[in-house]
């Protein structure tokens, strides 16, 4: 491991992304967010992820956490990134429509993503296109619905057994 380099501020990261990807870097959520989130267009998630990982000033080599969120009017996938080399952290968020939410996978950028993408697929029904293995992970394969969605109704029966 090389010596820790220089941490980069969230605002600068957003400006770098804005310069590189234009409108695909949508917004910066800073006030009340720790760490701050750069909001990106879902279609560009993979390119931006790869850039964040490979750019030497940023080098976000570690995906700490990948979570789905249901904001009622839309879904989001939140990525928490950390750089072991530069010792800084950033959030990346992509908002998805409620109807058929899907976005490209990042499991070839950070292999750590696979299980957490499967979890978001399982509990939110968010599809990660191009994933090497996208199956339910925590719930049984024949479970109906996605429990962490806000409108989820608890089933009365499972295989004829009252729950």
């Amino acid at each position, binding site marked *: 491991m090389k010596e820790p380099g220089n941490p980069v501020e969230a605002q600068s990261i957003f400006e770098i992304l804005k310069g590189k990807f234009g409108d695909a870097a949508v917004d910066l959520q800073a006030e*009340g967010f720790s760490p701050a989130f750069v909001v990106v267009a879902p279609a560009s998630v993979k390119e931006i992820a790869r850039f964040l990982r490979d750019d030497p000033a940023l080098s976000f*080599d570690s995906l700490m956490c990948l979570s789905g969120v249901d904001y009622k009017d839309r879904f989001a996938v939140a990525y928490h990134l950390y750089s*072991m080399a530069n010792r800084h952290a950033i959030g990346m968020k992509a908002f998805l429509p409620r109807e058929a939410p899907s976005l490209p996978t990042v499991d070839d950028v*950070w*292999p750590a993503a696979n299980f*957490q993408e499967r979890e978001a697929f399982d509990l939110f029904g968010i599809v990660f296109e191009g994933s090497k293995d996208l199956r339910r992970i*925590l719930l049984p394969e024949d479970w109906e619905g996605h429990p*962490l969605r806000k409108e989820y109704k608890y089933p009365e029966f499972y295989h004829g057994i009252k729950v």
Partner: protein
Amino acid sequence: MTIRPEALPTQEMTINMGPQHPSTHGVLRVILTTDGEVVTRAVPDVGYLHRALEKIGERVSYAQFMPFTDRLDYLASMNCNCAWAWTVEKLAKIEVPERAEYLRVIVCELNRISSHLIAFGSFTADMGAFTPFLYAIREREKVNDLFEMLCGNRLTYNYARIGGVSADAPPGFLEKTREFLDYFEPKIDEYNELISYNKIFVNRLANVAVVSAADAVAYGLTGPNLRGSGVAFDLRKDEPYSVYPKLDFKVCVGTGERGTLGDCFDRYMVRINEMRESVKILRQALERIPDGPVLAKVPRVFKPPVGEVYFRAENPRGETGIYLVSDGTVNPYRLKIRTGSFVTMNLFETVTKGLMIADIVAVIGSFDIILPEIDR
């Protein structure tokens, strides 16, 4: 009679290991495809212990979620308790009294010792040496006694509170903890003499399931598993929280002392050495703990500000990260718990390719996974 090899067709066999299997540390199911004794593919199947903790979290108040964190990793409940408290305090910017922070560090490190003891004991039992397990349980009982004295419980403590801890240390607790440390520290040498450098034990672990430093980072390994690959990264030092910056300790890393850097033996040895560091932290904390209140003033109906935080704590099984979304009401809006064991399982299929079936047991033990943390 001669047998022509081509007349004896062979085929791969699929074997089901678990979910009820003594060496899977809970209800882990692994679907093994084997070619003779060699595993060509090991696919983990998790979720048998899914209790929907994240969904429950959206239905209960911030304070009510505390006992559920006990069940997150029941071998390190104190650490999970405190991780939840620190997350909410980060969100609501609550100032915690210093004595409470010291008490938290004391219980976290005591729990780290007892958790590593189980990791050590069950691992050696998996490897065929049953005696060390009994030694580990013997010492762990003493930690449980201390916790019982402190909060009345021996497994699920529910000790931390948002803004502090539920009760101050009873008279004699700190002295008893010091006595325990004096008793426990020489035991680590005893473990090393008993089993760590035993030839059979070393041969079972050295050069098995090597994880390179680059792979460990890319796959998101954390805690002792990451440090076993030689990466000196510890949240208590690198993203310090609580009073850890005031305490002096060393980050233990794997050195490849008996085989290749990042093998099962390195991960095992990191845990043994970390117990020594925990003792060191505890001694300093016992020395410096100030007098004062142990609970900050937090409103009975607690409504944190709107916002989103991610907090991560260095728990015995790696980073426990909590992503908390608040909409300003009494319940968390969304709460995601990222646990060390869950992310580690992602690497399982890659790292077990080409190993023997008996080595699978060594890999599970060396990663020190625990199922309630995976399935949540």
